[in-house]
C-alpha cells in the first residue's frame, strides 16, 4: 500500500518554456516531455540553458508553486508573475518540497522529484526584483521524466 497516494491533488496552473538563457519565458497551453531529454523547445533540452555546461539528469523539468508567488505578494509586496520564476510548470496545491525522491503524475506524464531547486542571482538580473533571499527554501523542485508525453494547463497533478 502506498501511504501517500491520496493525500493531495494539485493542478497545472501554467506551463512555460524559453529557448535560450536570459530571454523572457513564454507561457504555453501544453508542453511535450521527452524521456531522457527534457521539454521540447526548452533551453535545458537543447543545451542552451544557463547551467547547461553542468549537465544534470535530474534537471529535465522544473516546477514552482503558485502559492509562493502569492506569498511574495502577500508578505513582501513583490509581484512576480508565473513567467518570471523561470521554472517550467507552475503548480497549485502541490507540496513540492515534499517530493524529492517521489513520483507524481502531471496529466499523462510521470515525473520524479530529484532535488529542491535553489534560487540563483540571475533571476534578479532578469526580473530586476530583489527576490533571491525571499526564494530561499521555496524555489521549487527539479525533476526527471519517468513517463513521457504531453501535459496541458489545467491537468491534475497527483502522487503515484
Amino acid at each position, binding site marked *: 500500500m502506498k501511504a501517500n497516494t491520496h493525500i493531495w491533488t494539485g493542478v497545472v496552473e501554467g506551463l512555460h518554456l*524559453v*529557448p*535560450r*538563457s*536570459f*530571454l*523572457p519565458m*513564454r507561457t504555453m497551453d501544453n508542453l511535450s516531455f521527452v524521456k531522457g531529454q527534457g521539454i521540447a523547445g526548452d533551453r535545458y533540452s537543447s*543545451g*542552451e*540553458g*544557463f*547551467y*547547461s*555546461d*553542468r549537465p544534470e539528469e535530474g534537471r529535465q523539468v522544473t516546477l514552482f508553486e503558485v502559492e509562493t508567488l502569492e506569498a511574495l505578494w502577500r508578505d513582501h509586496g513583490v509581484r512576480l508573475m508565473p513567467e518570471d520564476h523561470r521554472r517550467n510548470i507552475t503548480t497549485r496545491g502541490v507540496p513540492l518540497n515534499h517530493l524529492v525522491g517521489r513520483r507524481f503524475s502531471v496529466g499523462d506524464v510521470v515525473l520524479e522529484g530529484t532535488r529542491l531547486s*535553489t*534560487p*540563483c*542571482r*540571475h533571476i*534578479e*538580473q*532578469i526580473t*530586476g526584483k530583489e527576490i*533571491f*533571499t525571499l526564494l*530561499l527554501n521555496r524555489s521549487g523542485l527539479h525533476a526527471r521524466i519517468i513517463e513521457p508525453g504531453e501535459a496541458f494547463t489545467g491537468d491534475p497533478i497527483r502522487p503515484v
Partner: protein
Amino acid sequence: MAKSIHRLSLVIAALQEVAPGVRAFTLTDPEDWPLPPFTAGAHIDLHLPSGRIRQFSLCNDPADGNRYVVTVQGEAHGRGGSLEMLALGPGTELLASLPRNTFPLAEDAGRHVMVAGGIGLTPFLSMIPVLERASADWHLHACARAAEAVPDGGRLVQVATERVTQHLSDSGSRLDLPALIAGLGPHDHLYVCGPERMIVQALEAGTGLGERLHVERFGTTVTGATAAYELELARSGQRIAVAAGQGMLDALRAAGVEVPSSCEGGVCLECKTRYLSGTPLHRDLLMSEIDRQSYVTPCVSGCSGGRLMLDL
C-alpha cells in the same frame, strides 16, 4: 571568453546610417524571441569578435519588446571598439550582457533637463518616448558640431520641437552649461551625457544640485567593486585587474579563468576559492567564519585592499 549560455545571444538584424560615420544597429534574438526588458537610460555590454567588451546605450523605446538599438560613432582615436563595431555587417552574432541602468530617469523630477554632447545623445533617445507617454515636462539640449552631425537628429525632428534645442558649435551657438544649471528650478533634474570635458563642467557647475544631477560617462558604466584592485593567481602567476565596478568572477572569466559557479548570489558556495593573501570583502550568506579565513566566493565578494592572491 564568455560562454554563450552565460550571455544574451544577439544578431545584427539591421543597420542604418544616422549621421556621417554614425550607424544604428538593430539587435534581435536570432529567432526574434522577445528580449529581456530594459528601462530608459540603460546600456548593454557587447562582446566584439576581437574579445573587446564595450558598453553601448540602448536608444530605442523600452516598450520595444523584441529589439535593442545601439548607435555607434567611429572614434579614430578611441580604444578601437567603435571602429570594430562599425565594420560588422548584418547577420553578425554578438554576445551581450543583460541591460543595466546606471542612468535612470528620476521619478520625482519636476522637469527633466537633458544635455547631450555628440554621440552622448544615445541614452536620451530611449528616454524621450517614456517621458512623452508620461506627459512629463522635459527639454533636451543636443550639442554637436553641426546639424548633420547630431546622431539620429532626424528622429528628434519628429518629437515636439519646442522641447529640443540644438547647439551647433560650427554656427557659434555653444551651450552655456553653467548658465543652464543656474536657471534650473528647485525640482528640476539635470542629465548630462557627453565627452569628459562636458561631464567635468557639469559636475563643477552642478555641485549644488546634489542628487538632482545625473551624469553618464562613456565606457565606465558597470557596477560592482567600488575601487579597482588586482587579483594574483598563485599557481599560474597570472595577474588580473578588477576594474572599479567589475565583479571578481566577471574579471576572472574575462581573463579566461573558469571558476565553477552556480547561484552567483553567495549561497551555493560552488565558486568558493582559497585565497592566500590579501583581505577579501566577504559578501556570501553562508560561509562560516573559519572558512572565511581561507576561502572567498568570487561571485559576490570583493577586496578591501589593492591585491588579493587566489590559489588558482
